[in-house]
């Protein structure tokens, strides 16, 4: 599936929820299910420092596609990462670089996208795109 198709699928899933509680419960459950990052990659080098919770991201390129794995010490943050990984993992670097993230607004999580929010979601998206840019350079 393309990034856009996955985003639309997520928007559909979230449209079924009636209130914030259901949305957050779903994210929390996603966070619990997130495959953990391999311990060897949980290093200080792979930390994206938000102010409050730690986030580790590891990227690999397989068959010209970028695979992400990640973890966080906070579960809601982990849920958000799970959504981002579902959207961006196993995609061509060029598509990741060009993708927009408006869908986060559409699923009612806009507050987490504010650059001043202390959970580092903005830095997280930026970091995923940075990896994609690095891999794109390798392909060129």
């Amino acid at each position, binding site marked *: 599936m393309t990034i856009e198709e996955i985003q639309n699928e997520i928007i559909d899933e979230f449209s079924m929820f009636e209130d*914030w509680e259901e949305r957050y*419960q779903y994210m929390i459950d996603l966070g619990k299910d997130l495959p953990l990052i391999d311990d060897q990659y949980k290093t200080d080098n792979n930390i994206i420092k938000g102010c409050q919770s*730690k986030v580790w991201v590891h990227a690999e390129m397989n068959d010209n596609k970028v695979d992400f794995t990640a973890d966080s010490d*906070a579960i809601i*943050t982990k849920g958000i990462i799970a959504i981002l990984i579902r959207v961006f993992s196993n995609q061509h670097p060029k598509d990741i670089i060009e993708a927009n993230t408006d869908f986060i607004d559409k699923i009612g999580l806009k507050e987490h996208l504010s650059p001043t929010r202390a959970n580092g979601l903005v830095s997280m998206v930026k970091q995923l795109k940075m990896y994609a840019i690095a891999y794109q350079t390798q392909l060129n």
Partner: protein
Amino acid sequence: MFKVENIRKDFPILSRQVNGKPLVYFDNAATSQTPQQVIDVIVNYYSNYNANIHRGVHALSQEATDLYEQARYKIQAHFNAKHAHEIIYTSGTTHGINLVANGFSALLKKGDEIIVSALEHHSNIVPWQMLCERTGANLKVIPMNQNGELEIKAFETLLNQNTKLVFVNHISNALGTINPIDHIIKKAHEVGAAVLVDGAQSSPHIKPDVQALDVDFYVVSAHKMCGPTGVGVLYGKEDWLNKLPPYQGGGEMIAEVTFEKTTYAALPHKFEAGTPNICGGIAFGAAIDYMNAVGFDAIAAYEHELLEYATNKLLEIEGLKIYGTSRHKTSVISFNLEGIHPYDVGTILDKLGVAVRTGHHCAQPIMDYFKIPGTVRASFAFYNTKSEIDILVEGVKKAKMMLS
């Protein structure tokens, strides 16, 4: 007669909604809310008195100067300073601390010692590390125990003839512990060391008497005391303030300037370079009037009632641990739910309209001591209620249910 229902009417912000729920504001240790009486003073200042002060011959400048200087007298009276010129306007507590730290650069030499406590806010550690780097002085730390109290015996063994300055907060921002500063001051003075006390967290709850404490420097911020942000004061004993060199150069702080030599203005202006936060100073005076009208005894008694109520209610929740369990503490509760990140709890509480602080509260050494990434901190003010605490407790239960 203290009636919380009446007091709440003074604070317009308390009737707003957050995420569709009535706001429950429990982040008072970060900043307090502003009563209409103080807001009116700010509006009135800009509507009728706005002018630059001290130099103008015109009426507006004179009136603004009078209001600003009257506020200084109010602040002097509140903290019971001997002289009004011992009250230096600052931009806040951090500014006051840096002013003193910078001044001590000229007074310290290699081998001198500065003592700080393990209960400090970052802003209280960094200026002293910088000062030690500049002067070759050494930094010593008063350790704390599991209850979040300072080890006073250990402090006494740190004191010696090389100790030049002791720096401690009156009340810890992260845990709410009230430190025995009268004892610390007495012991420090026995070896000839000066004492600087951070009163940012104490000034909203108690009325310190700087002469009775015999403290050398005391710093506060207006925004923790129902005043505006960006203004505070440094109290310093006249002798000490005369010994310290000026902090910043600029207008207001000079007596005479030629290219050969500048003579500095007398206290307090020597430390007040540039155009100050005039409106802020005046509003700070109004905030002090407001809090005194409510009454600090009534405030302390009521907040203690809130603290006990909330502590008991929260401890009924299984797996909830409170950090900072000193018997001497103010209305601050720092806590965690077992196995749950404080950030997650804070996010759910925010959705319920409850404002708390999560994280390390700029006191990372304290978090390292307890080996936790941070805490959820609920801090209560005299305008909070028990029914708001019930909303917090229900919210924490809900967060626990959703996150476990």
